[in-house]
């Protein structure tokens, strides 16, 4: 949803990084289920995906290469894939830094991180450049790269490239991932041999490992710059790029994995309906991000396939726990009881999403599936409000106009609030104003997030020094921060999960987020385009077919 906006905030490790998984020192071998046959169906309805991450049972910090099957044998070789995506003249191309969805599509064709997530959101290496990552301690990791991997310019991947890449990520001049710099600096890296690097963190952090699997934490060759030659290790190398127009990517002949297509063209569209029209009329083979309203148009067309994947993106109504009237926990609880979450999924997402439970990190293994699903309970809400002396409450609720869904969300909420006898005045502000100086200062507002593991999300918005203290959680005197510090240093998954559950419990009972739903990713493609699978995912079109290496044309 968020990328629907023309204006997309820069991707940073802080704000927009999408990191998922069990994220312990332990990185599990993933059970590959990448084959089309094993994939979930590509039906039109919302995939019946269970919210929650994969199981993580291995406690020992051992690292195993992922066992991977890529695409089932029989994929046809050759052809050009035309991918349509909403993009603009502001588009950029970079191995690590991107802004918009079109940039995402381009980045994954040419660059790869050292690790990735498997279908259960555990760390894996089937699409990563590392052979293994060994966690020696919560603040000490050894990365061993696969040997014989070549960049597009035939240079061999080595330890220096990894060090250069991570230094570039934390370089404030690049402005890419300033948040990462609290864990590493230029002295954190030690080259053990040509393929091995030891990373010493500035402070212990188990979630750091998740950072390595982020789709933006890519490896670029030593000396890489935005303005220089666009060189990576990914399945396709950039041939040409015109912002707002198109990019052409040709097969990386010495790619370490398997590829089918000769060429991928990523074509910019200024308008989502033009994008869908282009797909229907056969001008493109794949349409990235189909608007809800047009999902049926695609699914009802026998020549096309609608690819809908569960994702963890969430939108929230934020209540400041430190300000009246929400400094009274009963008022916060009442608000959470007012929401009819099923209605929200229908109204805001046209059914293309799953009901939320005021908790985030839905794809993470630590997601609290055992917490009872909160339902609308107007009577209980009224009682709480009465107790708090807030029956007849009147309050203004803000949303920006640049994020699809939020305006509908607050409008629907205002209507539901009426049933509880309180008056919520929905106010939509222009995006510039909304995200300006007043952002995080408003008592009652909205926000949106892509998904990341619980412990990676907490410092974003739920600590006293959080980057975006939208709810100003935790309340004064809470043990929440102490629990967090314990958790990030705890390498034992079970123990860590136990601490996390305690934190989640506090947020579930007293927190300031009203999370009604998680959004699905919807793409469309021609029936002859094969290899994209519907499964819980971070990026559109099955993670862009992992840089389109999984995609082939059945023509």
């Amino acid at each position: 949803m968020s990328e629907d906006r023309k204006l997309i905030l820069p991707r940073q490790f802080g704000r927009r990084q999408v990191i998922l998984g069990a994220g312990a020192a332990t990185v599990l071998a993933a059970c590959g289920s990448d084959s089309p046959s094993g994939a979930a169906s590509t039906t039109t309805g919302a995939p019946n995906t269970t919210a929650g991450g994969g199981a993580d049972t291995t406690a020992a910090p051992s690292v195993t290469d992922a066992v991977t099957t890529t695409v089932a044998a029989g994929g046809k070789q050759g052809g050009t894939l035309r991918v349509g995506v909403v993009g603009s003249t502001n588009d950029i191309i970079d191995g690590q830094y991107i802004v918009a969805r079109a940039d995402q599509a381009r980045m994954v064709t040419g660059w790869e991180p050292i690790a990735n997530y498997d279908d259960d959101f555990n760390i894996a290496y089937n699409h990563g450049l590392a052979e293994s990552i060994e966690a020696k301690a919560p603040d000490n990791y050894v990365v061993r790269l696969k040997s014989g991997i070549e960049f597009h310019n035939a240079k061999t991947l080595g330890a220096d490239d990894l060090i250069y890449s991570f230094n570039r990520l934390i370089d404030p001049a690049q402005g890419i991932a300033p948040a990462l710099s609290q864990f590493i600096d230029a002295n954190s890296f030690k080259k053990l041999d040509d393929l091995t690097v030891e990373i010493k963190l500035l402070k212990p952090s188990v979630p750091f490992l998740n950072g390595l699997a982020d789709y933006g934490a890519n490896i670029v060759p030593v000396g890489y710059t935005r303005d220089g030659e666009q060189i990576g290790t990914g399945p396709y190398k950039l041939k040409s790029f015109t912002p707002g127009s198109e990019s052409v990517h040709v097969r990386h002949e010495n790619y370490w994995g398997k590829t089918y297509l000769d060429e991928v063209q990523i074509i910019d569209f200024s308008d989502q309906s033009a994008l869908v029209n282009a797909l229907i009329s056969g001008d493109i083979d794949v349409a990235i991000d189909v608007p809800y309203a047009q999902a049926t148009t695609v699914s009802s067309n026998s020549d096309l396939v609608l690819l809908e994947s569960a994702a963890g993106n969430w939108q929230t109504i934020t209540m400041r726990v430190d300000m009246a009237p929400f400094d009274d926990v009963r008022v916060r609880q009442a608000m959470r009881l007012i929401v009819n979450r099923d209605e929200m999924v229908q109204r805001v997402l046209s059914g293309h999403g799953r009901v939320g439970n005021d908790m985030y990190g839905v794809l993470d293994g630590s997601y609290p599936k055992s917490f009872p699903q909160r339902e609308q309970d107007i009577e209980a809400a009224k009682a709480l409000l009465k107790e708090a002396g807030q029956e007849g409450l009147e309050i203004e609720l803000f949303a920006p106009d640049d994020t699809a869904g939020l305006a509908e969300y607050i409008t629907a909420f205002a209507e539901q609030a009426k049933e509880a006898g309180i008056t919520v005045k929905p106010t939509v502000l222009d995006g510039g104003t909304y995200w300006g100086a007043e952002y995080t200062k408003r008592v009652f507002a909205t926000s949106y997030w892509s998904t990341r593991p619980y412990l990676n999300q907490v410092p974003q918005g739920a600590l006293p020094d959080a980057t975006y203290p939208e709810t100003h959680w935790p309340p004064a005197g809470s043990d929440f921060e102490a629990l967090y510090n314990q958790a990030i240093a705890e390498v034992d998954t079970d123990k860590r999960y136990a601490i996390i559950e305690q934190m989640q419990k506090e947020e579930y009972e007293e927190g300031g987020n009203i999370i009604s739903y998680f959004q699905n990713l919807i793409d469309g493609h021609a029936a002859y385009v094969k290899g994209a699978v519907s499964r819980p995912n971070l990026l559109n079109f099955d993670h862009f077919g992992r840089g389109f290496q999984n995609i082939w044309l059945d023509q």
Partner: protein
Amino acid sequence: MAGAPYWGASATAASSTFMGIFKLIVRRVLLGVVTLLVVSFAVFALTNLLGDPVHRMLGRGALPEVVKAKRAELGLDRPFFTRYFEWLKGLMTGDPGNSFSNGSPVMDIVGDRIKNSLFLMFVASMVSIPLSLFIGARAALRRDKTFDRVTSNQMLIFAAMPEFVVGAFLTVLLATNVWHVFPATSRIRPGQPPWSDWKGVILPAITLTLAVTPHVSRTMRAAMIEVLESDYVEMARLKGLPERAVLWRHAFPNAVGPTLQVIALNIAYLAGGVVVVESLFNYRGIGIALRDAIPVANAPIVQFIAMFIATIYVVCNLLADLGAILVTPRLRTRLQ
């Protein structure tokens, strides 16, 4: 007498007319430049109200130092008038600056797009102007008959429908649902001329044509009706001239003059109309570039395109005035 086409213009009259027109052009061009200067200030001031491009680019997590450095890099830390005059100087010397979002020179981004948009406008004009003159003239001739009634109703309908409705309808009809005759979207490859994807220009051109044809044809119809009822057209018939000569020699030229102004306004309107139509068909012109640039407050691009559209307006009006003078002897001879 023989051999001397004495009803043609003489050399001396022609040259004095030419001098008159030349003087007129110089005067009008100067006026146009003054207009554009005023517009430039308005454009620059208004684009400054689009918002803070740095904030929009770096987002909510940007470090203050980075913001400051970026502002300095884009030159936004300097006073308004300094920036205005530098921008103006750049415009006049052919350097409209660099895009805020990716630092590329504005011309690199919009250069091809201007060509594409001009081509689209050209195609739409080349179709709509003759078409609407023909429809208007024929409707006037067949006043209150079937052709007139049908076209008048149709034109009214098209005039009432916004471009995006017409465009969406055409897409469904000719590209996606009913017939697959034309591509739903255009795709001009970078560096290629706009006609390289000639199929892709058809639907946007038809949409624009339908947007302007009603106005021009209605004006033409009215002008033609007036002319057809004029004494000199009756006189031409009473002289026994064949109907073709009556229409094309006597009526048509006199009806085109008053219609020229409307044609010019409509061509200028096309420059604005492309903004909607281009998005609809993903036609890579200035319209899409403008749509891309405004939300991120990419002022150099917005400014350049706004100035381009303003220039089109000025040039179209200039050409219309000149055209009206050239086809109207009463105005033309006044210049001698």
